[in-house]
């Protein structure tokens, strides 16, 4: 038996201190609006790119507008993801072995569907399918991540 004398009140205070300090380093809970917003911006970006490819060459001005809007949506996706998930100075967790598998499994069917449509409809088909399918995969992964973070 270790020789020490710690008052139970001190023990409780130390436990509270440890809990607070640990919570400060843990990832912040993901807000409820985040999965739908990030996935929506991702899907919107690729769909708008796809639509711009469909337009005939003479409609270059609307096509440029669509591409601009698509770029804005994809940049928005990156910015929102970075603002919500990035903690400066903290590496939240080292990737566990096999952690890549759920993400790959969620995105592979989406990429396969987009690939098949690319063979039939060209780049427009690929982009128009990639947006919603990968967006949906993204949404499911982020919702699961949020639920898991809430459960911890």
């Amino acid at each position, binding site marked *: 038996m270790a020789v020490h004398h710690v008052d*139970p009140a001190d023990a409780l205070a130390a436990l509270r201190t440890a*809990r*607070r*300090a640990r919570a*400060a*380093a843990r990832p912040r809970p993901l807000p409820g609006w985040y999965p739908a917003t990030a996935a929506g911006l991702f899907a919107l970006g690729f769909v708008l790119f796809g639509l711009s490819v469909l337009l005939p060459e003479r409609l270059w001005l609307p096509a440029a507008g669509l591409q601009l809007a698509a770029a804005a949506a994809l940049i928005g996706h990156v910015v929102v993801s970075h603002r919500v998930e990035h903690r*400066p100075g*903290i590496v*939240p967790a080292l990737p566990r072995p096999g952690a890549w598998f759920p993400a790959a499994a969620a995105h592979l069917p989406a990429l396969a569907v987009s690939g098949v449509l690319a063979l039939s409809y060209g780049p427009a088909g690929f982009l128009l399918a990639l947006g919603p399918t990968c967006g949906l995969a993204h949404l499911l992964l982020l919702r699961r991540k949020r639920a898991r973070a809430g459960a911890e």
Partner: protein
Amino acid sequence: MNAEPPAPAFDELIHQPTRLTVVAFLSGCAEAEFRTVRENCGVSESALSKVVSTLEAASYVKVRRGYVGKRPRTWLRLSPEGRRALAAHLAELQRIAATATALAATLDHHPPQP
């Protein structure tokens, strides 16, 4: 994955409040930058340097020095030994608190006879 709870063991080195705060903070992440630890734990640079030296000497903390661009950065990480020691120490603190609570409940139900 080791799901077994650690055996309670009081750790004199970790129990000091500043060291406990730093170790507990590092247990919540894989790695953290020195400045981030300092800001979040509310300690001065010199105090944190001393804490890190002590914990590094006990192999509880690993220090990694690198650069972000041209700026030097120091990264701190809790070693597996440090994680085990913290878990065992927190388990011991919980045991102390639980024992006191149980004793108080017993005394409430069976007050000592005069």
